[in-house]
């Protein structure tokens, strides 16, 4: 079972008494380390269509060696379509809005909004994409909602021969 890291800055606390001890061990640590994060790529928002949630489909150069351009664009385009569906103005959203207004918004205590439903769908899609496409290539997509819908964060893991992902 994977152990999670606890603290980063506390490393400075373990300074003098342990520095000498740990320096002996860094050599062996390096050999036995599992995939480390090499870098992160951030796909920024595309505001050319206004304030709706849309991400740039430009293929970042850091991913060139890892994944197909077409595959990447397809992922981003699907995400964009899902977000567009969430924010779509139409009969259904108006009906929901009016009903909510009439019930003084208490209806949202019982049911979730259309937007929230689509966000769940997006989370499932990202998980699915990670499992099938990105993880085998040593990449990890982070759900944009965890970054405040600002960026799609793609973590690139180092390609090591020993480690085989998680």
């Amino acid at each position, binding site marked *: 079972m994977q152990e999670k890291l606890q603290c980063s800055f506390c490393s400075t606390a*373990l300074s003098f008494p342990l*520095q000498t001890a740990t320096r002996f061990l*860094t050599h062996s640590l390096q050999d036995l380390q599992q995939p480390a994060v090499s870098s992160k790529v951030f796909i920024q928002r595309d*505001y050319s269509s206004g304030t709706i949630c849309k991400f740039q489909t430009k293929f970042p150069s850091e991913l060139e060696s890892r994944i197909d351009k077409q595959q990447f664009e397809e992922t981003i385009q699907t995400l964009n379509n899902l977000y567009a569906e969430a924010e779509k103005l139409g009969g259904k959203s108006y009906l929901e809005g009016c009903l909510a207004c009439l019930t*003084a918004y208490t209806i949202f205590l019982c049911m979730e909004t259309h937007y929230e439903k689509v966000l769940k769908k997006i989370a499932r899609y990202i998980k699915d994409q990670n499992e099938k496409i990105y993880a085998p290539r040593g990449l990890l997509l982070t759900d944009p909602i965890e970054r405040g819908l600002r960026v799609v964060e793609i973590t690139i893991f180092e390609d090591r021969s020993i480690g085989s992902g998680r």
Partner: protein
Amino acid sequence: MSQLQHAALDQQGQYNQICTRSSSCPPPAEDSEPPPCPCPGHRSRTPRRKWQMFPGRNRFYCDGRIMMARQTGVFYLTLVLILLTCGLFFTFDCPFLASNLTPAIPAIGGVLFVFVMGMLFRASFSDPGILPRATPDEAADLEQQIGEQRGTGNSAGCSRPPPRTREVLINGQTVKLKYCFTCKIFRPPRASHCSLCDNCVERFDHHCPWVGNCVGRRNYRFFYLFILSLSFLTIFIFAFVITHVILNTDKSSFSSCFKALSYSLTLFCTVLEVVVCFFSVWSIVGLSGFHTYLISSNQTTNEDIKGSWSTKRGKDNYNPYSYGNILTNCCAALCGPLPPSLIDRRGLIRSDMPQTISQSNGTSNSNYTSTQLHSHTCDQDQCIQSTKFVLQAATTPLLHSDPIVLAPLPGKTTTLGGPCAHLAPTQPSLPSCSGDVLTLRDTAVDSHCHHHLYLHHHHHHHFVSPEETPCITPQGALPCPNHLHLHHQPHPPVPSPAALYNPASQDTLHEDSVRGLVKLSSV
């Protein structure tokens, strides 16, 4: 050896300071530092929920379910005014009106009152659409991009760095996206940074002290419905109180002392209600009308005040966000989908969660290397199982068993670190010119209409457009001493993260090994 000793001396103090945070610390060390209190009501416990580490200046209640701005005095005044007036109306006027006219009057009044209170609470207590601050990795990535742009665009003659803006073409209009120094993001279009709450808010309308919160994308419809229903309620009460007075003068009888007393009491209450309603009608009805205009043209108060889309700026200037017709604009604003809160205030803090920019080291010289390191240490995929057995014996007596949360520092101190260093000295006092103009630019674009209810709302404001502001004007542009008082930020009671977390002084491998040390000791 001397280098190590020197390092030890430097870091020993840090070790003590970190130690004081934990519960299993030796008592003498504990007294030297008070435990951090990130927000009111939270005392020396490990923060469990994200609202407890929220970097903005909001107040949270009910374990993060309710959020408001810091200054809530005027909100209580609003509550008192509404409750008092309605209370007097229902107590003194309704019995007469119900018996003499129709019982529908108190019924309708009751429904209106409930709706007004509901909308008020919804507007006051919900998240207006706050944008969470950038994680250190994101901020570093942006800094790198900006640096590249500057490097390519800067010719030999340029002495002053260009402002951090990005231009975007929306529906044929060029819109400038500004960089927020506090939140370390390029603000989306229509977003603005509220200096009172110290947050970037999406579709920022204004900061309303009467409601005790910012009005933004997520609570604009509640705010509008609140002022609209309040106008109806005010007019309703005003009309029926006058009716009561008129009807009562016809059949006044002073047959007994008691009746005379009750009559004068009723009269006093009536006068009070009339006075409150009279002023409210003019201000609130006016405000409702103004916001109806804004909704129908799909503008925010911020944009209207700045005149962003007015034809006075240019013949081709038009609002790119408008849907074309009034009905669609209204429906979109009031009945459109309600986006969820982006800040997840009730989420549990995970120890592997990346810190937001306010809580972490932001020294300019470390830039991408340090954040890369930071991401190394923050990432939940790191595992150094193999060294567990070797290191555990060495580390157990030194480290405590409690897992240390990644973001223990007080979240309110937003101005730590190199790039933001210029913010810290400026905020508590009247700023001087250099570089601080940038700060004020960010804060000056907010339209806090403190007096908007009682003055001509869209003409009286303490707003200064950054393009028109020369260096010294910002001092005069913020005449309200309240504003400057509110800008004051408390200095951290603990040393800045730069002192505690200093990755630049250690090499990568050492970091990795020490990281494993900490993790494994807490197993």
